[in-house]
């Protein structure tokens, strides 16, 4: 990771990444030749590897070991103020490395010297000199010396007093007074490991002592320094103490020291000269703290600590400090922390979806981007800086352009130059990549999914976060000119955003995609994106939309494009045809087959800027048996667009299996449409107005009666030398069967009807069952018993084409077979009448012209109370298809007139049946007629008939004729009759006195013609009498 | 007047149903004007029913005057049906015209009138309802919206004009 941060930042890397464990160096260990040494050394290494020890061991020779020189500081007495002494910087850059890598805490010297060696004195002298030299080299650092005397034979064999004596002299000679500074290695090879274990522990202790001494030393300085004023010094001291404590392994102490260091740092004057240095130091301090915190496995503290740090410094710019520099600094902070975090995680720390290193890499990237933009702001080609540029790297965070050495002008120039050289894009990209890899591992969640019945948890990637990252990555890939990868990323992102209807994001993705397509010369992809960019949903300034469209024009015209489109891309467009192949691979939302040379844009797979709807109308008479197709276009492009070769693909779907029919005939699939046509004339699409292209297609002469025409897709080409085909296809073919032709606006109105109101493809048309004929009855409810009822049946051809060989059928009874109480008399078609005795009649009908109508008269005789139910059918041929229209009528039938009789004597007293009358006696019959109907009726005539009475052969008329009665009114009248002598030999049985007849008609219907067409006669019987031949009288009976 | 207990329901239901109705009508008809008409018509049909329901629940004696009637309608009627009260004011000298002000008009709660429907009288049903109710009480009136909250006025106001006092239809002469 650290590799990302160039220049100044790199210098910090050792400081930040330096190992913090005690360092022990070993001299005189000849692993090569000496078997024992070998074992000794390997055991140590093993311990290090297995983490049994924290000590770092290094082998070296007396002359390779070199302690960094300690530069002598001016001796300071108490009470000296900081005017006398201002350190040039806060912290030396190389200081931590010096102590962590160069200066050992313990120096172990192996010496092969037997206790009983003859030349003991000489050897002792050598050692003395060696240690002498080492000591001088050490220049009074507190590094501990340890000597190890190797013995070939075990000590026990040596007399006690020799050892003590010689040991003593040796110590004094080499000045190894310290208790644990002289050891002997006398055991056999096998026992060495145990010995090593002991020694390792001892070395560790010594190291601890060493670092404690160092701490004490530094603290001594602190005591004399002035807390109130010499902040920088205190920062330095505290840092040192902290660092030593780290080496010591006392992380908590370290943390607290660093903390205090920070506090002091905050007090240091924050001048533009120092700003950079101060912030860098702060960064270092915080980094060290976080490192400790992670090591003491307190990640949350670390995070809190760090975010506090960033929050404190985010806006902390010194006057005149260049924002780019600041952004760079923050970016670096994040990057550092991220890598620390990452290390911790790799070291087994658990992280969660919402707290993981990836986030911090992301943030780092954000600031890297900000740095870039800030740098761009002041971007003006600046020459390489002069000799001033010799950078001094003695102090942390001091660069030449921030140290007082350079003037402001120079500084600015240097910064510009520096930022200019800086490979921003790649840096950002690396950060983003790092972020993404980590995101991938954490953006995973368990999702319940139903697998054959039971619910199981399936892992699901939360891809949105990644998509966003990819979008950004794509952006920088473009800057890096890595267009191929950028394309793939951008397209994937675009797909996601399109699906989610995140238009503004989609726009960004598309713009990238477009740039790539441009650079790669992928015509198809380029045009696709351009078209989509113009879609109304995409938020884009008018100019940009225009730009996008002009891009298309350039392609179709094959003109070379100016660089107006995007800064400095290669003009990559050759002829569209040649690029067709490439475009088919990396073309945008799904280019399909390049059948017609140029690339094809499938509008169904993108957000279309040019919409297309197809409406199919039923065949028109003028265009005998041709389907009329209206193709409506609406373009959202800013400028007019000229298209040509408009070609709808129509299929004939037979109902029922229509669905799978369409399934097989989706656009793109091989089989050709049943009906097709291509309009070669060009059409201009005016922005945001509906343009309708109308054309007719011949249908096969005789379609099955359930056939329907289905449009599956439409193709059109943008006019130009390298035309680009557009293809609108049905979202899914299954819909085709469901759509109906009911709510279709007439072609004339298409341009005016709102676009949303237009039914969109797929659209079916020409469903032949739908007849063009309507049958209606004109009549007056209710029907009256006895009436001859004339029903005017109007057969109207509502279509604009004639109906041929029609037959009109009528039958008694409702369509549902409900019973009726009428007799069909006749059917009259313009004058000609057709009669039949049966309860069904039929008559041929002349052809009915378009929008004409034909009236058929159906006469029925209503013969009883009940229902007048008739059903009329019309069978006819329409567009060569047999059709049927049916209508049924049902009316209540009532008796309009009620008649009641009374038998009276001449005085008008009503006769009761006990009374007997002699023959020749006069009597009266009182008749009362009333109607319940609202309709007024006219009594044309009314008479009595007494068949049995020879005397009164002729009917006795009622005077109440031509009376008109309405609801609730009554007509009554008396007829005087003389009971005649009995007919000789008349059978003495009960017979009717006679019958009563009324002839009437509706007041509304005129009755100039005497015929019964409108006049109705209703008959009712008079009361009964019975006749006794014995006596010459008859006895009346009251009516039964 | 002894008022009987009237079953009451959450006011939102009425408001929202009415809103839904208006919105739907706007889809079905071309012009706002037609919608206004339809609302007025429906209002009338509701009004003629409401008035009987009202009388049945608050067994009111016939009000003496048009003035009295309007006041009752504003006070009692609105309270009973919509749970708000309206106030009658600005009587003309001849007591033939007044304005009815609906204090917090429940119909317009939540409503934000879109600009394309400036012509719409959102609350036009009031007019019809009042007209219908008064007509059954023998007053043929013209009711028009004069102020509309949705059009920026501070409250909803209707103007009621008495056109004619109806009398029982005499029996047909015969």
């Amino acid at each position, binding site marked *: 990771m650290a590799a990302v941060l160039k220049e100044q930042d790199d210098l910090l890397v050792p400081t930040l990444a330096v190992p913090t464990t005690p360092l022990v160096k070993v001299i005189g260990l000849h692993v090569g030749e000496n078997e024992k040494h070998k074992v000794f050394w390997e055991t140590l290494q093993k311990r290090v590897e297995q983490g049994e020890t924290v000590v770092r061991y290094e082998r070296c020779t007396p002359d390779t070991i070199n302690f960094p020189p300690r530069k002598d500081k001016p001796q300071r007495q108490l009470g000296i103020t900081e005017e006398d002494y201002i350190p040039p910087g806060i912290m030396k850059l190389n200081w931590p490395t010096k102590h962590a890598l160069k200066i050992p805490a313990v120096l172990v010297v192996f010496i092969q010297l037997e206790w009983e060696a003859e030349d003991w004195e000489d050897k002792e002298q050598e050692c003395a000199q060696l240690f002498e030299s080492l000591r001088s080299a050490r220049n009074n650092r507190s590094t501990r010396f340890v000597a190890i005397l190797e013995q070939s034979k075990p000590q026990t064999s040596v007399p006690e007093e020799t050892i003590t004596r010689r040991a003593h002299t040796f110590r004094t000679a080499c000045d190894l007074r310290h208790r644990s500074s002289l050891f002997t290695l006398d055991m056999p090879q096998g026992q060495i490991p145990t010995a090593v274990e002991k020694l390792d522990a001892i070395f560790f202790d010594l190291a601890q002592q060493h670092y404690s001494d160092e701490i004490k030393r530094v603290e001594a300085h602190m005591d004399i320094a002035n807390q109130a004023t010499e902040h920088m010094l205190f920062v330095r001291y505290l840092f040192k103490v902290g660092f030593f404590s780290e080496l010591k392994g006392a992380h908590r102490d370290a943390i607290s020291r660093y903390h205090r260091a920070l506090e002091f740092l905050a007090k240091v004057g924050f001048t533009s000269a120092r700003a950079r240095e101060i912030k860098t130091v702060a960064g270092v301090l915080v980094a060290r703290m976080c490192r400790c915190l992670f090591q003491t496995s307190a990640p949350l503290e670390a995070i809190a600590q760090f975010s506090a740090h960033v929050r404190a410094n985010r806006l902390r710019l010194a006057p005149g400090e260049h924002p780019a520099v600041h952004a760079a600094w923050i970016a670096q902070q994040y990057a550092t922390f991220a890598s620390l975090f990452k290390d911790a995680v790799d070291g087994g720390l658990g992280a969660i979806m919402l707290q993981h290193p990836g986030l911090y890499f992301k943030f780092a990237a954000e600031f890297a981007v900000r740095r870039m933009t800030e740098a761009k702001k002041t971007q003006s080609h600046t020459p390489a800086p002069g000799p001033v540029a010799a950078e001094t790297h003695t102090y942390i965070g001091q660069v030449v352009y921030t140290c007082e050495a350079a003037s402001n002008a120079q500084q600015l120039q240097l910064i510009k130059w520096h930022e200019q050289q800086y490979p921003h894009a790649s840096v950002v990209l690396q950060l983003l990549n790092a972020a993404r890899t980590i995101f991938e591992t954490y953006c995973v969640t368990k999702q*319940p999914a139903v697998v054959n019945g039971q619910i199981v948890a399936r892992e699901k990637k939360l891809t949105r976060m990644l998509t966003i990252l990819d979008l950004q990555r794509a952006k920088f890939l473009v800057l890096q000119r890595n267009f191929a990868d950028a394309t793939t990323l951008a397209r994937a992102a675009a797909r996601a955003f399109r699906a*989610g209807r995140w238009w503004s994001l989609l726009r960004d993705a598309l713009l990238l995609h477009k740039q790539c397509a441009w650079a790669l010369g992928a015509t198809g992809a380029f045009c696709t994106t351009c078209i989509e960019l113009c879609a109304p949903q995409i938020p884009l300034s008018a100019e940009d939309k225009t730009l996008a469209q002009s891009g298309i024009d350039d392609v179709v015209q094959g003109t070379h494009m100016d660089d107006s489109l995007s800064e400095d891309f290669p003009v990559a467009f050759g002829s569209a045809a040649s690029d067709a192949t490439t475009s088919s691979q990396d073309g945008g939302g799904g280019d399909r087959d390049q059948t017609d040379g140029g690339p094809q844009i499938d509008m169904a797979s993108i957000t279309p800027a040019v919409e297309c709807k197809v409406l199919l109308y039923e065949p028109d008479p003028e265009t005998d048996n041709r389907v009329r197709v209206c193709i409506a276009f609406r373009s959202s492009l800013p400028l007019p667009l000229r298209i040509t070769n408009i070609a709808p693909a129509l299929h004939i779907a037979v109902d029922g299996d229509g669905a799978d029919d369409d399934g097989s005939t989706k656009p793109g699939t091989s089989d050709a449409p049943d009906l097709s046509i291509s309009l070669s004339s060009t059409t201009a699409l005016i922005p945001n107005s509906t343009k309708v292209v109308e054309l007719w297609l011949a249908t096969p002469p005789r379609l099955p009666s359930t056939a329907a025409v289905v449009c599956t897709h439409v193709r059109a080409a943008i006019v130009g030398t390298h035309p680009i085909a557009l293809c609108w296809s049905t979202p899914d073919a299954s819909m085709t069967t469901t759509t109906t032709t009911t709510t279709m606006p007439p072609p004339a109105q298409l341009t005016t009807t709102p676009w949303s109101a237009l039914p969109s493809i797929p659209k079916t048309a020409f469903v032949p069952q739908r007849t063009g004929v309507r049958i209606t009855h004109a009549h007056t409810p209710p029907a009256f018993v006895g009436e001859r009822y004339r029903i005017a049946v109007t057969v109207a051809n509502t279509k604009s084409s004639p109906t041929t060989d029609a037959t009109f059928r009528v039958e008694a009874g409702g369509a549902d077979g409900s019973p009726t109480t009428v007799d069909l008399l006749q059917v009259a078609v313009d004058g000609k009448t057709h009669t039949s005795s049966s309860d069904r009649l039929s008559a041929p009908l002349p052809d009915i012209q378009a929008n004409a109508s034909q009236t058929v008269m159906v006469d029925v005789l209503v013969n009883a109370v009940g229902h007048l139910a008739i059903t009329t059918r019309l069978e006819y041929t329409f567009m060569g298809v047999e059709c049927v229209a049916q209508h049924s009528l049902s009316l209540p039938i009532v008796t309009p007139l009620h008649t009641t009789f009374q038998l009276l004597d001449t005085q008008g007293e009503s006769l009761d049946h006990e009374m007997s009358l002699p023959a020749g006696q006069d009597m009266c019959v009182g008749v009362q007629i009333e109607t319940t109907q609202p309709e007024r009726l006219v009594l044309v005539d009314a008479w009595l008939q007494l068949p049995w009475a020879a005397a009164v052969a002729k009917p006795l008329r009622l005077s109440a004729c031509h009376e008109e009665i309405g609801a609730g009114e009554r007509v009554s009248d008396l007829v005087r009759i003389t009971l005649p002598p009995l007919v000789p030999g008349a059978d003495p049985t009960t017979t009717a006195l006679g019958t009563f007849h009324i002839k009437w008609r509706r007041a509304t219907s005129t009755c100039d013609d005497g015929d019964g067409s409108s006049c109705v006669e209703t008959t009712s019987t008079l009361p009964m009498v019975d006749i006794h031949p014995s006596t010459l009288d008859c006895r009346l009976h009251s009516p039964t | 007047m002894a008022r009987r207990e009237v079953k009451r329901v959450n006011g939102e239901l009425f408001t*929202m149903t009415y809103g839904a109705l208006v919105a739907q009508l706007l889809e079905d008809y071309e012009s706002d004007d037609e919608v206004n008409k339809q609302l007025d018509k429906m209002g009338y049909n509701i009004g003629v029913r409401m008035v009987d329901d009202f009388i049945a629940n608050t067994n009111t004696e016939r009000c003496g005057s048009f003035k009295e009637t309007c006041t009752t309608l504003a006070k009692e009627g609105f309270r009973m049906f919509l749970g708000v009260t309206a106030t009658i004011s600005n009587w003309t000298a001849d007591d033939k015209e007044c304005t009815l002000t609906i204090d917090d008009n429940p119909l317009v709660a939540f409503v934000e009138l879109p600009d394309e429907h400036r012509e719409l009288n959102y609350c036009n049903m009031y007019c019809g309802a009042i007209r219908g109710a008064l007509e059954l009480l023998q007053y043929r009136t013209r009711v028009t919206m004069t102020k509309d909250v949705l059009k920026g006025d501070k409250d909803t106001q209707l103007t009621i004009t008495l056109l004619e006092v109806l009398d029982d239809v005499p029996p047909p002469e015969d």
Partner: protein
Amino acid sequence: MKISGVAIVGRQNEPLLLRTSEAQPPCEPIEHIIYAALDVVDDHALLSAKKSTPDALKFYLGALYPLEDGKCYGYLVNTKIKFFIITQSQAHSDQDVQSIFQQLHSEYVRMACSPFFKQDAPITSAKYVRFVDSLLASGS
């Protein structure tokens, strides 16, 4: 608390309203923040579907994920509408955030009750936008 952005996302996770304060906009484009945050909301939704602890069913989802300079909070209501608040500076009491969400929601409901309200369409109601902006403005 400083609110730098407010977002409302519809049933199909399509954006209905995205507003940022001009004074202090969030560090990255609000689209990026919200789009990514949807992942976390999904996660919550799945969670609540599995276990039915009262907390899992709360409208208030708490902080969704950390931003460079703030947090993104989420609020998922019964009607599957998602509300988001982007704050600057890290620490806020949940009560405060929650109360803001409740205001946002109830105002939304008022708007949604308007008969002219279009379901699942980007929010155009001037009234509501004004309200949201007032929230953004009152940053303190």
